[in-house]
């Protein structure tokens, strides 16, 4: 008996100390989503109450003892119409409300800071523009819109942050996006919610929301020495991309300066918005994305560049905001990659080590 009561006692203590009924609301979207959630809870409670009242009430009123002979009733068009139209109306309200939130969650604002997340069996790898990498955790500043660009290297994964009420699948072969703006510092759960194989339940991590100062500190402490764009620049040169994309008139490949965020005309007559997904696709399947006036001579880099490499290339192309920048790449290709001093970008963003300086450049591009 003693033994059992001890177990029970432990359980009770645990229950009281480590028990939650509602997740924290730690992002801007969370209260909005919870408002709809509680609206639906309210509707459900009312609906349930009505149904239960009807069943219980009729059961008491018309039990066989009290009401021995049933009265046959065919139906009532008015009642039928009532319980068709009222639920329909409520559902339509919920539909509109829900869709507004959905579009908000999946339409990142232009000034969002972009972080890449690569999912693979069974870990999450986050790549910050400044070159910081982290596994199964994500450090973000409070009060700034963060856009995640997700991709998977193998199977479907799903990046879920319950405290932020956001979730997006990372699927192989294509970028997906989600954004959020944290409103409370702290550490929150990160889950993979799409079943992805044996260690699915180990594909979890922490979302660490930091104050701006702490975030700056974290950025400088965890730098890998090279920003994504710098990494991409090396790759750009080593893959000889700059042999064609010279940025000069008459070159074999289109000029990449300022291309990000613009709308370009393709050889097949369509137009395309240049975003991360487009750039990724154009690197891996170039023949489907030939710019107008160019011939499809670009080889595919599928199988030659890893997803991390593609991300670096995309970040590099994003950072190209002027022709000077392209020319510089050409001149420095033979140099060692650690030529950080050449970065001409403006250091809008306060503090941080050199690599982090690339990030503001890319944001400037997004605004265009």
């Amino acid at each position, binding site marked *: 008996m003693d033994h059992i009561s001890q177990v029970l006692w432990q359980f009770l203590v645990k229950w009281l100390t480590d028990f939650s009924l509602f997740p924290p609301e730690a992002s801007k979207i969370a209260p909005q989503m919870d408002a709809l*959630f509680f609206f639906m809870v309210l509707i459900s409670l009312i609906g349930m109450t009505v*149904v239960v009242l009807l069943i219980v009430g009729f059961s008491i009123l018309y039990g066989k003892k009290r009401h021995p002979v049933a009265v046959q009733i065919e139906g009532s068009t008015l009642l039928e119409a009532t319980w068709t139209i009222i639920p329909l109306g409520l559902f339509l309200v919920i539909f509109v409300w829900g869709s507004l939130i959905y579009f908000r969650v999946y339409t990142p604002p232009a000034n969002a800071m972009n972080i890449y997340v690569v999912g693979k069996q069974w870990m999450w790898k986050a790549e910050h523009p400044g070159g910081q990498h982290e596994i199964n955790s994500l450090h973000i500043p409070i009060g700034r819109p963060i856009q995640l660009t997700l991709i998977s290297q193998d199977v479907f994964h799903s990046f879920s942050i319950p405290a932020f009420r956001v979730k997006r699948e990372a699927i192989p072969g294509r970028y997906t996006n989600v954004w959020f703006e944290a409103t409370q510092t702290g550490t929150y759960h990160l889950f993979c919610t799409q079943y992805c194989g044996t260690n699915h339940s180990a594909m979890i991590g922490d979302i660490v929301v930091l104050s701006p100062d702490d975030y700056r500190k974290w950025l400088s402490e965890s730098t890998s020495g090279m920003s994504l764009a710098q990494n991409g620049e090396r790759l750009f040169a080593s893959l000889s991309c700059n042999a064609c994309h010279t940025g000069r008139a008459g070159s074999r490949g289109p000029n990449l300066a300022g291309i990000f965020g613009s709308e370009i005309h393709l050889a097949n007559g369509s137009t395309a918005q240049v975003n991360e997904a487009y750039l990724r696709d154009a690197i891996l399947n170039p023949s489907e994305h030939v710019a107008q006036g160019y011939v499809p001579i670009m080889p595919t880099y599928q199988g030659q560049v890893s997803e991390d490499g593609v991300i670096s290339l995309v970040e590099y192309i994003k950072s190209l905001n002027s022709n000077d920048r392209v020319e510089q790449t050409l001149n420095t290709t033979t140099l060692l990659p650690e030529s950080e001093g050449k970065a001409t970008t403006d250091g809008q963003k306060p503090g941080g080590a050199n690599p982090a300086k690339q990030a503001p450049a890319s944001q400037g591009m997004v605004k265009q």
Partner: protein
Amino acid sequence: MSTDTIVRLPDQSTARLPKVNFITKENGLLSWLLTGDHKRIATLYLISITFFFAIGGALAGLIRLELLTPQSDLMAADTYNKVFSMHGIIMVFLFLVPSIPATLGNFLMPLMIGAKDLALPKINLLSWYLYVIAGCMILYSMMTGGVDTGWTFTVPLSTHYVNTNVITTGLAIFVAGFSSVFTGLNFIVTIHKMRAPGMTWFRLPLFVWSNYAASILMVLGTPVLAITLVLVVLERAFGIGVFDPAKGGDPILFQHLFWFYSHPAVYIMILPGMGVISEVISTFSRKRVFGYTAVAFSSVAIAVFAFFVWEHHMFIMGVSNYSTLVFSLLTMLVAVPSAIKIFNWSFTLYKGSITFETPMLYSFGFMGLFTTGGLTGVFLASTGTDIHLTETYFIVAHFHFVMVGGMLMAFLSGIHFWWPKWTGRMYPEKISQLAALITFIGFNLTFFPQFILGMLGMPRRYAAYPPEFQVLNVFSTAGATILGIGYLLPILYLTWSLKYGEIAGDNPWQATGLEWQIQSPPLTENFPEIPIVDYEAYDYEWLERKEKEVTRVG
């Protein structure tokens, strides 16, 4: 007999089971295995489905036991994955889809419409054999290493990243799909072609209507699942590249094709259950179903709309934002016919003369749980909240409320309701009422905490979870234990009643359906002569007149 029951049994001292009935007509195993009689095939189905339900239920027990603690200590993660995959596959394809249509539907369809058998008895038997073959293949794959893809077979996980028995299981489901197609096809033909004279469409019992609607879904939806699984098997075995992103294929296409069937499939599961509820509620409140035509057409409306909503399983998978608008809206629309049904059943009680036998208790359970399940479905149909709630325990709780709370309650309700017709003997009333109560309590304790877990963000299919979720999981496991008892009881006392149950007589419930106007258990040919139907469905006054005539003549 007290006044609070409608049960009217023959005098037990003199009553005997009819000497000649479909069970005693022929003897020997072969006479069962080669039978064309829909009632015998239904019995075969009932036995095999109960068998697979027991296996699926045992696996569910293992899942709940594993989740008692946050660590994956009872099983390793890969074992856990195999267990929940098998639980899903067995429960969905071998229990929920065939459960009511293949057992109660098979048994009752010809009886209710006044026919001697289904239109295609041999196809009916073939469909059972296909079911058994599929079941054996699944058991085989389970015993030779199992499969760990989940019942959804998500590509590219199932095609490239697991090394378990995906092909065997996929083909097994393909075969089970054919079994389901043949059952549905048989029902549609039977309902169109075999109705007794005078049995017009609007005199059909609502059970027939809802099975008709479910059959349409089976016939039109299942082949898409079949081709999807064929493509998965081809992808896995030969690498044809259609679903392989590395070759330019599209894994999202798999999701489209898979859910094109698998969403309507949930209506295949629930519609026949709704039919049972209509019959039971009407009988135990001695009243015609309120708004018969509305209930009948809402079944058909569900069947039609069921095909327009599948993308709501993919809202967070990177599908076009604009198409989610279409699918979310259509999903809202499909919720309306279900709401209509619930209110119509509630109002059937109005001014009725209600008694509370076991089938009625299960039906009340169905209405409560299905309403909860249905309303939480709206949380998931609304795209905004779907983002947070999908792929968590919220969705697990939602579909268990609909499938287990709804369908399984309806199945048990139906089994109890037609048990006297099927076997000629009554089940023990008191203990079965207790079992209904236990099931209801156990069910709520098991699955209600999972809504909260889902809102907290606990992902589904996790062998291990963060410790703050433990309390609710302990509740859930405790509930599952009670639920297990709730399911074990009927199996025991129904088996007991086969020998010791009271003799039921032709019509213990004083019900109006054609099936109640013949002996129980019925003759092999059902009706000694083809009945001529001259009364509306659920016409209790007709029944009284008829009984008066009988007593007068007698």
